[in-house]
């Protein structure tokens, strides 16, 4: 049996991490400069980070590409929503839903994105999808192929990688033999530690009520292996990186090594959504620590 060639994932950052700063005390230019300093070479943008979404001006588009060139950044993933209930009352028609998806596909293609973090409408906090999801994705697939984007549904805590709908998604991709549908694994699904110096009792109570932190409620690192062929971009979620550049809540070394050993070379975008995001100095420091952590595991 031939040996699997080691993967070389690209280190990136999700602009979402700056969501409590962008537009308040930081511009998009500042964000790109910050990502560059952390050693990131790719990024995730949410649709709303595009000025005047869904109709950015040519001036903004030019400036966006100027930032990509200046800071040597590749577009990795665009976050968008496959809305099916934009107005009150009944579900939107297939035509309406599809038109919005195609609009986002075109925009992603224009801005150089190959991955989309597609939020499929779901019915609970575990993101079990609306029953009509398969029909909708079948309608969307030809357009995703045309605009060369992959719709990646996020597996985000408290959802485990072994939840039924994840298997259903993989089965869908296999059935249609497509690379334009898959999974974005948010590393928060592997969180197995809640240190008392990071999480207060009140915070833990709040999280437990939302399904986090209960015994056996997280994914095991090995659970990512069968997902890898269906994933182009993952959210390298972190909660706190300490002064020794160790992440104390998620088994980072194990997860990354498994990905590399199984030949995965996708985009790893750092994502921080914990407290302190309004403090630019704190957030910038955490993102830099996170990239040093990843670079030491990856070797680059």
């Amino acid at each position: 049996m031939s040996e699997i060639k080691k993967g070389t994932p690209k280190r990136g950052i999700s602009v979402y991490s700056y969501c409590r700063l962008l537009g308040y005390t930081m511009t998009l230019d500042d964000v790109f400069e910050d990502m560059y300093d952390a050693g990131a070479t790719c990024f995730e943008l949410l649709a709303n980070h595009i000025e005047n979404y869904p109709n950015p001006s040519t001036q903004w588009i030019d400036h966006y590409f100027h930032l990509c060139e200046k800071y040597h950044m590749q577009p990795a993933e665009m976050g968008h929503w496959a809305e099916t209930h934009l107005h009150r009352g009944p579900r939107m028609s297939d035509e309406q839903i599809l038109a919005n998806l195609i609009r986002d596909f075109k925009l992603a293609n224009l801005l150089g994105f190959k991955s989309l973090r597609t939020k499929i409408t779901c019915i609970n906090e575990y993101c079990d999808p609306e029953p009509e999801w398969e029909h909708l994705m079948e309608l969307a697939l030809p357009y995703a192929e045309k605009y060369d984007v992959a719709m990646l549904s996020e597996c985000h805590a408290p959802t485990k990688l072994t939840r039924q709908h994840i298997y259903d998604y993989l089965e869908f991709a296999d059935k249609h033999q497509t690379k334009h549908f898959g999974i974005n694994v948010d590393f928060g699904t592997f969180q197995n530690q809640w240190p008392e110096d990071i999480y207060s009792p009140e915070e833990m109570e709040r999280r437990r009520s939302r399904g986090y932190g209960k015994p056996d409620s997280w994914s095991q690192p090995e659970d990512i292996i069968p997902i890898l062929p269906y994933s182009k971009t993952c959210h390298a979620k972190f909660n706190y990186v300490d002064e020794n550049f160790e992440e104390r809540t998620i088994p980072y070394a194990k997860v990354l090594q498994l990905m590399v050993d199984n030949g995965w070379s996708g985009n790893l975008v750092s994502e921080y959504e914990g407290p302190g995001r309004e403090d630019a100095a704190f957030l910038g420091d955490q993102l830099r620590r996170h990239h040093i952590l990843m670079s030491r595991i990856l070797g680059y």
Partner: protein
Amino acid sequence: MTEQYFVQQRGFHNIYNDDGTIWGFQFKMCTLYYKGLWLSQFRAGDAIVDGVVYPKETLIWNIQGIDYSREEMYDRMDQYWQVADTATVKVPCPGGLKQGYHTVEIQFGWICNYNAALEPDPNGNTLGIMGPYTRMSTAAGSAHPTERRLLLVW
């Protein structure tokens, strides 16, 4: 936008030659003064990083995209350093700094035509007669140290 610190977090990294070798490192700074300055009013001092003094004569100041030595700035009455804009300080240092935390300080000041006497040294060899204002006169009385601990990644 600019942080409310003399030494900025963004812009701190080593500087590479085309062949991949490192010739120095850079960081950004801001005067935090309420107004801008003509370059000829600015008095650039030494950079001190991890206790190592990098003399003012060796530093390169990049303001609005143009490099200046300390000496060259004396005659630039035509270049205005806009308020809240940052300057990039480039420090020659073969091999650069190691990845990790560093304490970065920049000494500086400026001259001003009010609220104080004229600059005593007509050659401008001092740090001027004003700044940096390490304690802002706000209700909170916040302190702004001239040195800052920053993390260098590359």
